[in-house]
Each structure stands twice: as C-alpha cells, then as structure tokens.
C-alpha cells in the first residue's frame, strides 16, 4: 500500500486538529483558542489503496520564528519528511489566513488548500469562489467543514490526486520589478543546469531574494554560489530601488499583501455578518469594564461549588458501595491476612480514590467548557493587566488553566509563550494551580472539617489561594531569578462557539476512563504495596502482650481503647511505620503524624496516592471502631484541625508528581531548573504549612 504523508499546516485555531479528526476519526485535542496543539501528532486513514498519514502540527501565524510551538511546525516543514502540505484556512478570515498560505506556496512544495469552516462561512454570508481561486493560484482549493464533515471526501480525493501527479507550481504574481529580478536569478540557475532535490529553481530564487536563512544555507555550499552572488546583489539592489525601501521584510509584506488583496477581490464576497456581531455583543457583557472580572470570579466559584455539591451525591453512593463490598468480602474470607489485604489494602485504597470520580468529572467538564467556548482568550484578556503586575504574561493564563486539570499538558502548553523566561516562570508556578489529582485530597479534607454548605466555598478558597500564592511566587521569581524584558501581549480573540455535545462528552469520558484506569492499575499496586509494608513484619511479642492484657479487662470500652493502641504499636513496628518514624521529625513542626508524613511522600508518585495511602493506613489502624466507618469521619476524628489545614497547604504547594517533574525537566531542558523547582516547591510548602499550623494552634 502506498503511503502518503500529509502535513496539516495553518494559522492557529483554524480547525487543523478538527479536520484531522473529521478525516480519520481520530480524537486529537480541539479547543477554541490559539495554541491548543503544541506538539506534532499523527492520525491515519486509508483511501483508494493508499494510506494517508496526517501530521497535525501546531498552528503558526507566519513562517518567521516566534514561539516554541511554532518552531515545531517550522522545523517540520523545512526538515521533516512529508509528501504534501494541506494548508488549512479559516474561510471566515480568509485574507489574514492567506498571508501564511503565500509563504507556504513559496516553499515550493506540493500543496492543497482546505477552506475550512465552510458551515460558518455560509451562515455569515461569506462566499468564496473556490474554483476561481484554484485557477488563479494553481493549487486545488477545497471548501470543507470539519464540523458537518461536508466535502471531506473531496478533500481526500484532492490529496490523492496531487500526490500522484507531478508538482504544479503555485502561481504567485509579484509586481513587475520583483518578477524581473526573480527571473534573472532563475535564468542564471537554469543556465548553470542547477537542480536541487528539495526545491525547484523558482522557489530557490524566491528564497534567496527574500533572504531566507535556510535557502542561503542550502546554496552556500554549492560551488556556483561564488558566481551567483553578484547576480543576487544586483537583483536585490533593483528591488530595493523600485520599492523605495531598504528592508526586505517590508518588501515581502507589501508584495504578499498586494497579492492577497488582489486575490480576495476576485474570489471573496461578503454579504452580511450577523454572527460576528453576536460575538461582539457577548463580549460587551463578558469582558465589560466593570462586570468582566467579577463575572469571571463568579463563574470559577460556581464551578467549584458544583464540583463539590453535585459531586457529593454520587460520591456517597460509591462510598457506600465500597463499604458494602468491604463488609461482604470481609465476612466471606476466613484467612486474616488475605482479608486484610482485600479490605484494608485494596478496597480502602482504590475505593478511596474512585469515590472522587464524580468530582473529577465535573471539574474536567468545567475546564473543557472553558477551552471550547472561546472564553479562555477572554479570561486571558481580563487578567493580563493583573498578571502583568506580577511579572506574568496574559497568555500564561492558558497553561495555568490546563494546570488545574493536570500539570503534564500544562507544562507543554507553556510552549505558546514566546519568551524563554516567561515560559520558565510560568512553568515554575504551574504547580501552584492544583491539579485534578489533588482534588480528592481537598474534597476529603473539606468534607471532613467543614459543614457541607461551606465545603464548596472552602474548595474554591483552596484553589484561589493556590493561584494567588502562585502569583506571588511569580513576582518573587521575576525580580530574582527571571529578570527580563516585558514581552508584548498580542493575542487573537476567537469568536464564541458552542461546543458539540459529542466533543464535551468525549473529553469527560476519556478523562474519567483514564482516572478509573489509573485507580485500577497504578493506585491498586500502590495500595497493595502500602498495605504490605504497613502490615509486615508482624511483631508477635507486642501482639501477645496486648492480647493477654485485653483478655484481663472487663469493660468493652477499655478493651477497644487497648485494641486500638495495639494496632498503633503494631503498625509503628512495620517497615512503613519505621520509615514514617524516621521522617516524622521533618514533618512534626507542621503537626503531621507519621501516617500523614508517609502519605505526603507517597503523593510524589501520584497525588491520588495520598488519599489511597491515608485510606489504607487509617483503615488498618481502625478495625474496632464500627461507627466511624468512612474515611472522612476517621480523618475528622484522628487529625487535629491545625494539622489538617497545614496538610492541605503542603499538598497545595509541594512538587507535582514525578511524571510531571520529568516533563518539566524535558520542557525546560535543564536539570538545574528542575532541581530549583524541587527545592523551591518543597521549601515553600514546608514554610507555609508551618506558618499555617503555628498560627492555627495559637488561635
């Protein structure tokens, strides 16, 4: 089977990923803001005996180097292996998009233009004559809609057609004097019988005249370069003279704009634009001078309220379900060790984590709505002034929001920041945005220590104070480690779009599936491990001592007190107990007992493990107390309020999990910064938890 590699290239937010999904049935991430895709991804489909491999690339505004994600695309275009480019264009913003198309056409590669969002264009009264356009520029242009999948099949056929036929040169017409200068260079190359495998001679001439580094690098090693040089100088000289300007960038821009306006005049007809007005009308409220920020805060507050209160109900069911399961299994199994492994290890650990699935689902639905409606860019707009004061860039908002889901994609999303320092700074404080995996810890503690109607507010408070701490940390880092120039803030504001239910469902479904999978594999193993090292080695001397003592006692109350004491003593002598006792001094000033200390450490593997560890440890030590069966109740009775708050503060700040730290190291490309991150987060977490504990104890 023939394999055709297609590079999907276009400006940000034009629907490249959506188009790849529509063509191949893949599930690439889609969002309504610039910079959703930050890493190249592939999707495959087969058509007419050929296999088409689509390479979805980050969007880029122009081929000039800008941010790290755009560089991914440019590098791929210049160095990667592919057969043709599919330039995805937003039909509702044709003139701007065509500025990139021309640059792509100048690369001299096989190309197809996909005029995407045709459904929106029709609604907005925008008509594009695709046939005329194809004729003028010599490249097939196909109107498609990723949303309705209309014409997607035609696009596939065009791709096949172009890939099977020899390359047709794109027809860009420059002004006469530029054409003349180009022709001279081409004639020279032709006369010398020069041929490059990568580009044809006209493309080389354009690249040389436009002073593209890559093309120079290509030609520089050729022996004929010496002879070429004077011709080139002459050509440039005449272009500068005629254009009355001495900067090639400006010449290029004027040439391109002229061609694009000419082209648009021929093929684009706009009747009316109601939809456009709708977006402006919504913006009048959502980014209103006075209302904008309060509305934003209200929406966030609402999200956390819902996360807690809506999640509460199914959470209760899941908790009861696991409780019932534990009892049933406990009653049927004879072997004490086996029973404890199943009930105190697996069910307490995995159940403790799965219980929070509803909360996780609501949180991710909220984030998905933020990402797909177009509100994200508005929030960045509203917060830029505020962020700027703390030395952050408005665009930092986007990776920071992803950070509420998971730090791993958030570190990658920071690529959209152009300036290296802005990017590193943002990455340093992403950890302050509590990720979804920490949500279970917060819900557990908020539920245990606060009234039900307050818990939602507490949850919101935790997230907000985390974010505020992050901003303060940013300020500190900005004036110390990451001094530097302010980066300009220029950002596209996409129109509002209603996300399809299918898309939202998919996001929530896939996140939930991932969570369940993690609970069933990683958390399961971790719980078994924790159970094992907190049960063995068995200490028979203590066991016997207490058993004889308990037998001597009369009252049941005294018995249960002693029974609990026995369990505590036993656990302290296990491997984990010994480890816990060793690290306890570090955490003692924060009011943590050894179990909390161990849970904190285990959270480094994954934040959900904190909950499963607490689940295992507290259920192991608590076999007698029948009334306080739920983990929440046990925790409320065993942990003091100041310690609990200090624990929340610590979890809020300290290092995101190991996986995230590895991604940080990869994205920052520096071990030094990774070490800083580890030290920075641990020290801050410890100090602030200490302050919290001390203040609350004094009160």
């Amino acid at each position, binding site marked *: 089977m023939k394999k055709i590699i297609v590079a999907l290239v276009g400006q940000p937010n034009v629907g490249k990923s959506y188009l790849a999904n529509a063509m191949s049935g893949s599930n690439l991430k889609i969002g309504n803001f610039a910079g959703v895709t930050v890493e190249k991804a592939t999707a495959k489909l087969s058509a007419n005996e050929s296999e088409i491999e689509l390479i979805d690339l980050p969007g880029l505004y122009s081929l000039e180097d800008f941010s790290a994600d755009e560089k991914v695309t440019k590098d791929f275009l210049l160095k990667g292996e592919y057969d043709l480019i599919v330039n995805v264009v937003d039909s509702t913003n044709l003139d701007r998009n065509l500025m990139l198309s021309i640059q792509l056409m100048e690369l001299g590669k096989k190309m197809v233009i996909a005029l995407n969002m045709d459904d929106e264009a029709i609604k907005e009264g925008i008509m594009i004559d695709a046939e005329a356009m194809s004729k003028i520029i010599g490249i097939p242009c196909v109107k498609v809609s990723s949303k309705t999948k209309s014409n997607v099949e035609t696009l596939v056929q065009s791709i096949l057609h172009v890939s099977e036929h020899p390359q047709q040169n794109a027809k860009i017409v420059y002004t006469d004097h530029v054409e003349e200068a180009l022709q001279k260079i081409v004639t020279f190359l032709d006369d010398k019988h020069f041929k490059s495998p990568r580009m044809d001679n006209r493309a080389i001439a354009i690249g040389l005249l436009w002073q593209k580094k890559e093309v120079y690098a290509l030609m520089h090693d050729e022996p004929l370069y010496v002879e070429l040089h004077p011709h080139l100088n002459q050509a440039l000289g005449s272009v500068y003279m005629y254009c009355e300007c001495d900067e090639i960038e400006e010449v290029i821009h004027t040439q391109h704009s002229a061609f694009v306006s000419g082209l648009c005049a021929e093929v684009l007809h706009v009747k009316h634009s109601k939809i456009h007005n709708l977006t402006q009308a919504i913006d009048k409220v959502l980014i209103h*001078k006075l209302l*904008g920020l309060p509305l934003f805060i209200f929406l966030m507050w609402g999200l956390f309220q819902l996360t807690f209160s809506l999640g509460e109900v199914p959470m209760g069911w899941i908790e009861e379900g696991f409780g019932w399961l534990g009892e049933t299994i406990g009653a049927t199994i004879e072997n004490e060790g086996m029973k404890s492994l199943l009930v105190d290890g697996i069910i307490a650990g995995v159940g403790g984590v799965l219980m929070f699935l509803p909360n996780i689902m609501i949180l991710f639905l909220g984030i998905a709505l933020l990402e797909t409606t177009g509100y994200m*860019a508005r929030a960045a707009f509203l917060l830029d002034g505020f962020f700027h004061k703390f030395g952050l860039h*408005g665009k930092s908002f986007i990776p920071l929001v992803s950070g509420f889901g998971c730090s791993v994609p958030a570190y990658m999303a920071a690529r959209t920041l152009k300036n290296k320092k802005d990017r590193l700074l943002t990455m340093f404080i992403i950890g302050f945005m509590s990720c979804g995996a920490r949500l279970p810890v917060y819900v557990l503690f908020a539920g245990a220590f606060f009234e039900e109607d307050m818990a939602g507010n507490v949850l919101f408070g935790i997230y907000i104070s985390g974010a505020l701490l992050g901003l303060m940390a940013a300020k500190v880092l900005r004036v110390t480690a990451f001094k530097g120039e302010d980066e*300009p803030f220029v*950002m596209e504001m996409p129109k509002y779009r209603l996300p399809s239910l299918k898309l939202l469902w998919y996001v929530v479904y896939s996140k939930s599936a991932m969570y369940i999978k993690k609970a069933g594999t990683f958390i399961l193993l971790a719980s078994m491990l924790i159970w094992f090292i907190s049960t063995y080695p068995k200490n028979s001397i203590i066991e016997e001592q207490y058993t004889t003592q308990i037998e001597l006692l009369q009252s049941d109350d005294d018995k249960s007190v002693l029974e609990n004491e026995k369990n505590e003593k036993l656990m302290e002598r296990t491997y984990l107990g010994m480890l816990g006792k060793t690290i306890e001094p570090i955490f003692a000033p924060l009011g943590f007992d050894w179990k909390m200390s161990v849970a904190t450490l285990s959270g480094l593997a994954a934040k959900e493990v904190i909950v499963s560890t607490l689940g295992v440890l507290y259920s192991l030590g608590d076999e007698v107390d029948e009334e306080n069966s739920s983990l929440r109740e046990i925790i409320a009775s065993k942990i003091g309020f100041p310690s609990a708050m200090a624990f929340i503060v610590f979890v809020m700040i300290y290092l995101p999990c190991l996986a995230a730290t590895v991604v940080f190291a990869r994205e920052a490309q520096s071990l030094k910064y990774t070490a800083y991150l580890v030290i920075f987060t641990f020290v801050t977490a410890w100090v602030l938890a200490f302050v919290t504990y001390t203040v609350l104890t004094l009160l």
Partner: protein
Amino acid sequence: MNLSHVPKDTKVKIVAIQAQAVLKKRLASLGVSVGKEVKVLETTIQKNTIKLGIGLGSVALRLDEAKSIDVEVCV
C-alpha cells in the same frame, strides 16, 4: 495620534507602526498593519489591555503596544 488615545468605537486607519521588527511581524500576521481600518471595541478597567476589531476578527493588545501604532480617524 496613537491608538492608545482613540476613544471606544471610533473607526481609525493605521498610518504607521513604530515597533521592533518582531512585534511588527506578529501584528501584521494578525492583520494589524499599515492601511488597515480598526476600531477599539473594549478596554479593561484600568485600560491596560484593549480589544481591537479588525475586519471580521478581533485581537487583544496591551496599551504599551497600542502606543506604537499611529492612526488617523476615518472620515
């Protein structure tokens, strides 16, 4: 007059952009270039950031960047 002084909802035409090459390029690729007609649609409370309407789309800018864009009022 530069863009930072333009009142809301007034249509103006860009006559010059005095910014570094990188910023100029970025602005141009978002459709903000000499000769284009734009409108300030929205500003934040302290007027730190403005929303600019160009053609059918809109772009957010900081006031600092707006200062480098010279405009004249369209008649």
